[in-house]
């Protein structure tokens, strides 16, 4: 198992480095300089600025410094637009917010999705099953950017139950709508996957054996059916995580939570390259790390995988 983890790490680290280098090079191709304003800057001032930000060195040198700072000190450098703030400060300010509702969304999506899918499979062809299938099919066409305005329309404007934006230090009523908006489509996918794999497992020979020898249904499900049925779900968690991290940008912008996605979009519109680069790398690192976790979990659950 340890060698397996080590081998996966050996793949993950170069992937991350490649992501950093490629994003950095892309940024180098960007036309213009962050200091090129309409009025223009005197040549001496520009040279000073470039020296200050280290832009007068060679490409390789700068890339080396950037990668070194990111890897060893987790330092993404200064923002190119806000003179008084560094990328790290923006991340430190926004990330806890995104993390809070992100973790909740993930928990909700997995718990509700698995429960719904499992019950639908156990009560196959019942009203509950049809309702679950209906929900999952419907939620397929309701990605986060569609859910968010619908939720605000219903719960904020019509019913007036919940605030339609803001964060207020993460009070519960400000967290509910973002969590629902972000988790719905993934909850539906998880429910669908759980249902079909659970149906398959419940028809397997060893489950029939377990029932034939008189085990109570509850025990059959928890001891024999649930674990193998979870395999496809676990492998879906990787893509689901990527989707949620991406979706958090929409949630941050739409609900004005002050999360990291808001900085990302504002920087994208203002061409604040270092912020975009820093956030891309941060999310890339998170994704790669999470995929690693999923792979390890998968190997741990599935006895067929040899490592």
């Amino acid at each position: 198992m340890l060698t397996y983890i080590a081998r996966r790490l050996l793949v993950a680290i170069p992937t991350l480095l490649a992501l950093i280098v490629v994003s950095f090079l892309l940024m180098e191709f960007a036309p213009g300089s962050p200091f090129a304003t309409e009025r223009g800057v005197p040549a001496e001032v520009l040279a000073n600025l470039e020296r200050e930000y280290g832009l007068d060195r060679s490409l390789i040198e700068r890339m080396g410094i950037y990668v070194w700072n990111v890897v060893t000190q987790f330092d993404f450098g200064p923002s190119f637009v806000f003179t008084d703030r560094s990328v790290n400060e923006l991340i430190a300010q926004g990330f806890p917010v995104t993390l809070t509702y992100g973790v909740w969304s993930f928990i909700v999506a997995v718990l509700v999705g698995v429960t719904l899918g499992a019950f639908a499979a156990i009560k196959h062809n019942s009203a509950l099953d049809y309702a679950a299938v209906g929900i999952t099919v419907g939620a397929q066409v309701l990605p986060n950017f569609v859910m968010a305005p619908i939720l605000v329309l219903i719960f904020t404007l019509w019913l007036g139950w919940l605030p339609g934006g803001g964060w207020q230090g993460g009070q519960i009523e400000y967290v509910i709508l973002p969590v629902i908006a972000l988790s719905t489509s993934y909850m539906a996918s998880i429910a669908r996957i759980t249902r079909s794999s659970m149906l398959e497992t419940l028809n397997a020979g060893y489950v029939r054996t377990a029932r034939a020898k008189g085990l109570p249904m509850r025990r059959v499900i928890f001891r024999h059916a649930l674990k193998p049925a979870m395999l496809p779900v676990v492998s879906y968690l990787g893509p689901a995580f990527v989707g949620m991290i991406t979706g958090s940008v929409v949630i941050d912008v739409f609900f004005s939570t002050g999360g990291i996605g808001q900085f990302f979009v504002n920087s994208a519109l203002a061409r604040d390259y270092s912020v975009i680069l820093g956030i891309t790398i941060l999310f890339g690192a998170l994704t790669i790390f999470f995929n690693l976790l999923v792979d390890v979990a998968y190997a741990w659950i599935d006895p067929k995988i040899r490592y």
Partner: protein
Amino acid sequence: MSDITTAETHLDPGLTEGKGRSLWADARRRFFRNKAAVASLAVLALVMLFAVFGQLLTPWSNEEIDWNLLGMIPQEGGPSLENRHFFGVDETGRDLYARVVQGTRISLAVGIVGALISVIVGTTYGAVAGYVGGKTDNAMMRFVDLMMSIPYMFVLILLLVIFSRSIVMLFVGIGMISWLDMARIARGQTLSIKNTEYVEAAQAIGVSTPTIIRRHIVPNLIGVVIVYATLLVPQMIIFESFISFLGLGVQEPSTSWGALINQGAANLRNGTPWMLGFPLAFFVVSLFALFFLGDGLRDALDPKDR
């Protein structure tokens, strides 16, 4: 094509008597028995017609501002037959019907182009990787894994910011990601086709590798490829809408479903629900239809999956 027919007919002994039915005739029969899929096809045909000919029904263009309504859009700007704003106007007084026509064109184009790229690039890539096998296969699929493990949306947004936000760049970016899944699926299929008798026969009489891939592997992939391409169209539409919702996709006066939904959502509090309602309805109904169509095609073309 004859390969498919012979390969398939002996699966169903009842078909060998009388006039044999081809795989495609069989698939068509199965497809048209599926009511939801047929209804979806009809809905999609209507949406297509709307995108192509919808502009002819309205005197307004998507850029023209109706000055008569400015300043009283929440009261007077709603859908109305009298002033020919069938879907009302947006917050700057432009005809929403014409804008939805425009957005539908872009969204459908994005979906179709993304699917086409994935069919061409993904199928070729997957078929080559699967057929050649060994180290080549390993390296090629590792690359796909690597591409899939990065949060692509952020890199795409980075690309859009750096190379200016244009529809061409959007197509390039979507094309770069859409083929990954297809490559995996095509490779998996190829691995099983590779060991069939007719491929062995072709190898035995000395047919070259590119010809085998072109003549024997790819035609037999078509069923699966069509199914996944259909399911890819809504994903690409969601993908583009996501970017446009953030204001980073198509630029004014062009628009797309995502951009229109964003606009409607931004005006939620101004009492103009039609600005959200119409684009949202188009988005949801079309995606629904596309998913059902994909499911119907899967049942029809991929019989072992039932």
